[in-house]
């Protein structure tokens, strides 16, 4: 028989998620260094270059934060949905739907005041994301259909729809090699705060605070937590668990939709398959690794934004961009492994 058995720790350190992430990141840097050494590259030089080019100047820092914005917004949405203990694997599709909604409103309506027009467009992005998760939400609360699967499948439907739109009705004849919709006008570009930093990042900060409040301090957040806990408790407390789950899903989807809208209005300026480069999937892991905490998502999301920017610029010295992806994934794996040691301990079997 096993000499040691596994037991759950009674008390888990409050900062355990943070420490796990930090240690995971160190592990990832070591793995990254080994890969670089194998490729005859100096890891120290490479990492310091990545550091310099991602947060070393106002411009590069702005790029990093701009990159982080959709990741954080989508991650916040996932965290909100997780309050009712449901998963949203469909953030990728919701991001695209947010962008599609923006373009749909943009080409059909015109407002002379560009500030209010931008506002309307961002609201439609939010609604687009919420619309995208509508079918999974309805089927979940009415019939109990597994939301992991339905949200995952909607990704492919929405990305398929995007490909259809940019090759068909919305195809910009001016874009020859890369199928895309026409650019939106400069009047609806999200302005920049300073340098290249877009107002999108400000929206991101606001929504982080909002999500934090919603999850931890609002009545709705409290009800969501009960609804996601036990069915009996919810009934006893007079909380309509299905209703809470439904609205949590719509709000969470809306966050991801907003991510797509912000990305379109501040970065890509047009609908194409390049609206998201897997932000929706990375966002899930970012949210999960921080224990679904909005502030944590904001910090880790920012770090990953910087890593992506750093990763894309080191190509110039002949280092593969994928190093950044590998560091991200290893950080997360490392954090999961470390988290285990915070949550469990090995005990001798004969201790009772």
């Amino acid at each position, binding site marked *: 028989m096993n000499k040691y058995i596994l037991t759950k720790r009674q008390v888990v350190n409050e900062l355990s998620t943070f420490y796990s992430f930090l240690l995971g990141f160190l592990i990832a840097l070591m793995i990254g260094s080994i890969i670089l050494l194998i490729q005859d590259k100096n890891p120290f030089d490479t990492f310091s270059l990545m550091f310099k080019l991602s947060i070393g100047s106002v411009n590069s820092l702005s790029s990093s934060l701009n990159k982080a914005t959709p990741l954080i917004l989508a991650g916040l949405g996932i965290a909100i949905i997780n309050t009712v203990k449901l998963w949203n694997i469909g953030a990728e599709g919701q991001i695209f739907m947010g962008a599609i909604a923006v373009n749909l409103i943009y080409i059909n309506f015109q407002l002379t005041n560009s500030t209010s027009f931008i506002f309307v467009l961002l609201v439609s992005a939010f609604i687009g994301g919420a619309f995208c998760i509508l079918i999974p939400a309805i089927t979940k609360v009415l019939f109990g*259909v597994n939301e992991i699967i339905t949200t995952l*499948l909607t990704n492919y*439907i929405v990305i398929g729809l995007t490909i259809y739109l940019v090759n068909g009705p919305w195809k910009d004849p001016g874009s020859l090699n890369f199928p895309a919709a026409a650019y939106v006008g400069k009047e609806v570009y999200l302005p920049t705060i300073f340098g290249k930093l877009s107002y999108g990042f400000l929206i991101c900060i606001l929504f982080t605070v909002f999500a934090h409040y919603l999850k931890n301090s609002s009545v709705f957040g409290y009800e969501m937590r009960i609804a996601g806990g036990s069915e009996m408790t919810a009934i006893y407390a007079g909380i309509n668990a299905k209703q809470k789950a439904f609205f949590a899903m719509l709000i969470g989807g809306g966050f991801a939709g907003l991510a797509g809208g912000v990305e379109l209005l501040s970065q890509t300026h047009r609908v194409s398959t390049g609206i998201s480069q897997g932000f929706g*999937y990375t966002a899930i*892991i970012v949210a999960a690794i921080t224990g679904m905490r909005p502030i944590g998502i904001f910090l880790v999301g920012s770090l990953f934004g910087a890593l992506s920017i750093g990763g894309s610029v080191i190509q110039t010295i002949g280092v593969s961009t994928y190093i950044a*992806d590998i560091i991200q994934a290893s950080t997360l794996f490392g954090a999961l492994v470390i988290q285990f040691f915070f949550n469990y301990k090995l005990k001798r079997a004969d201790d009772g």
Partner: protein
Amino acid sequence: MVDVQFLGLLNATLQAATLLFIASLGELITEKSGILNLGVEGMISIGAVTGFMTAVNTNNIYLAIVVGIFSSSIFASLHAIVTVILKQDQTVSGLILTILGLAVSSLLGKNYVGRKLETKIDSLFNIENPSNVLEVFLSQNIIFYLAIIFTITISYILKNTMFGTRFQAVGEDAKAADSMGLNISKTQFIATCIGGAFAGLSGVFLTLSYVPYWTDNMTAGRGWIALALVIFGGWKPYRTALGALLFGFLEALVPRLQTYGFELNPYIVKITPYIITILVLVMLTIYKGGKTGAPKNIGIPFFRENR
């Protein structure tokens, strides 16, 4: 004389279906043990690139197949370590596996993009240009026939043998299975690695026969379709095979639509399988009262509390 276009469509359907089906059969085995692995896309990618690299360097196609299968299986063991031994969240770990798999395979295959293969997996009975339906079936390569054999044996084992019943008990009710004396962790660990092995086989089929070359992200979402197929098939091998044929047919049909004179939009046709899968899932959930065939313990880490 049978229509040549029809034979081409049939052949393409079988190949596309084989590719999807092998990966979903592996996922089916993993999920039956109660482990959800969302990393199929990454695992296929690892198998695809390692198989291709071996084939380019050694010209030994069978060695390449074995290497692809083994490397994917070892890669899947990462998921097994994190979820089975360390009891961490399966959704998260699976997603990381996808991201890591795509990144690692792109890194490994960097110098192999655009390289030509000297050999590829040949048609088993050496039929080059099939002229009737039977010959199309006989012109497939060994992986196609393996897929058929796997379907029959796995379905038989799951339904009719003691081993199969015990295996499924782990995924249905781990606590009860544990009290019966079954080794939960070992079963789940091995099932996850087997899932990886199948994904690897699917990957080598992709780079050594279906395409055959290597470029970044060439799995193109097939791993996710494989996941959808398991649900579509209600966790049953034959129904999963049927689903794979449907998805394979649509994949084969899309580039041929115009030659048949249809005015259907190819982009819309491409998303129909996903819509059908959602409909099937919803109908299964409604009509069977929640019994979609999903293993009950799926996604829940097994932890033996207070022995």
